């Protein structure tokens, strides 16, 4: 169950408490996140919306251990990540986080198979075990037959599927998706969202997703609006479309 009001103890998988993030631009201080609280349970699918510059990606980067907050804490499965050293945080990311980006971010000189295999190179798995995991991940995203294709030989939707396979191949604790359909046409976007929903429904993955698109956000179980550095739960229409922030 997602909660944005709890500032005490909880048993949630992800616990964010009093999160602040301030940037300095020139001589000016810009406070992007202000005392933000959030609880996300295992298997939740949370969508984050908000205007450009509202801090959605910053929040995702903080929860993914790519950036450090100015104040506050983030705990994932009992690990408090906000005070980890850079090296520890890198190890933690490898074990717990799967990233899906708007521009897919595949390595262009590697095949789909090799791209998906990348996170497994950091593990102690043998070559055979790595092969089994990669083939399983590519099969889940429906690209088993394209493993030897390079990114330039795939469509945008297929590239994003490879990126999803790379994100799930090491079975991370949760997935962070930053505008996963932002560079895709509607049909491909629907396919990608169907795939992410399937990962939640069938494989019990926990997904945190940033999007601008209300139709995409509507796929999430819970949609949160980020406004002026604070999270509020959004309302949905009768047709399930996100219509705006609410109390």
């Amino acid at each position, binding site marked *: 169950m997602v909660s944005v009001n709890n500032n005490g103890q909880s048993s949630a998988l992800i616990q964010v408490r009093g999160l602040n993030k301030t940037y300095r631009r020139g001589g000016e201080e810009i406070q992007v996140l202000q005392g933000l609280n959030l609880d996300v349970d295992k298997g939740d699918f949370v969508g984050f919306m908000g205007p450009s510059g509202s801090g959605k990606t910053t929040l995702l980067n903080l929860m993914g251990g790519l950036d450090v907050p100015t104040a506050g804490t983030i705990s994932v499965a009992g690990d408090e990540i906000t005070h980890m050293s850079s090296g520890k945080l890198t190890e933690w990311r490898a074990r717990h986080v799967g990233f899906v980006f708007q521009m897919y*971010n595949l*390595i262009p000189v590697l095949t789909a198979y090799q791209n998906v295999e990348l996170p497994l190179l*950091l593990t102690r798995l043998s070559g055979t075990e790595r092969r089994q995991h990669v083939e399983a991940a590519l099969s889940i995203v429906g690209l088993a037959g394209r493993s030897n294709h390079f990114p330039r030989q795939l469509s945008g939707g297929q590239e994003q599927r490879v990126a999803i396979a790379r994100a799930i191949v090491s079975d991370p604790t949760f997935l962070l998706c930053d505008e996963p359909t932002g560079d895709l046409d509607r049909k491909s976007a629907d396919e990608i969202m169907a795939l992410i929903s399937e990962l939640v429904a069938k494989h019990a993955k926990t997904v945190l997703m940033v999007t601008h698109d209300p139709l995409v956000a509507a796929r999430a179980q819970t949609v949160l609006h980020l406004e002026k550095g604070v999270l509020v739960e959004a309302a949905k229409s009768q047709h399930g479309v996100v219509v705006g922030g609410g109390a």
Partner: protein
Amino acid sequence: MKFWRLIKANLFRKKVRLLLTLGSFMVAMFLFAFLAVVRGAFTRTGGIASAGRLVTINRVSIIQPIPLSYRDKIARIKGVQAVTHYNWFGGTYQDEKNFFPQFVIDPENQRKVIPELVVPDVQWANFLKDRQGAIAGAATAKRFGWKIGDRIPITTTIYGTGGAWEFNLDGIYHGQHADDDESQFWFQWDYFEERVPDRIKGLIGWYAIKLDSPDEALRVATAVDNEFANSPYETKTDTESQFAANWVKQFGNIEFLILSIGSVVFFTLLLVTGNTMAISVRERTGELGILKAIGFKNRSVLFFVLAESLAIALVGGILGLGLALIAIPVLGSALNGLLPNLILSKSVLAVAIGFALAVGAASGLLPGIGAMRLRVVNALRRV
């Protein structure tokens, strides 16, 4: 090894750039090997054997003679095991272009002082019996297709007694080490003495002295020069390696020239490869950000960049040295014996590979550290 596929894929990302960088390494390594070989040719002495040898020349210059009568006086000095003498003949074979070093030798002591240049006993015995006999180095015999028993005419402009001097090839010597000079041609003092004008008779070019122990070098050298001080033919005695170094100085400061060219090559190569690696890393900022995001540590990123630059350096270096191995013997032949053995030794090859790897590491280090320090969030913005 599981990372090799990623390193290889990045290496071949821009094939033209890879070929050009490999090419620059190849040319630089070829040049390095060539310079090292030329330096070696100028400074080579008899290796370990030469450590216990001295060379005595006229104090004024090596082209001024010294009397043969000094030989017995030198032999009596404590610490001298054997002494032999040489004259430079300066002749050519058939054509002026066919130059090689010919020495008038003292057969009695030659093998005692220079044991590393070996002549089979039977051939040496025939040489001793033959007043017009000669011994050729294996390289020179091979160069002109000589075989034992051949009649060899040598024309000299120094001892202008008219016509060519005729020699019988009685033996062929071989060096015991790869870098021993096998280009020389020896013939007997008695034959030389018989044919030269009276004004030259009884005068030799220089003495080679074999010591009881290399530790005696300084004492014996001083004793020899003191023995002939204030005489009409004062002497200057040095160790063989010092003599070789002085000999090279006559051609100018070869060492400085070679080091200067080598340094320019080194820095040019460093700038070229450093720039290439920096561009290559800058182009991949976003990808490096992804690698870090999914869990590759800073040191892994540094490793990838260094592995790439080292692989380029190693392959380029090997190609350059391969080219040198093929080209240097050809070049040696083309020089017609102007320089003794142009040898690309194992030690030169090892130093060259070390040099290539050092340039590879240095050129990959700065971009690698830059990649290491890259903040993931900033890198991902550059996708």
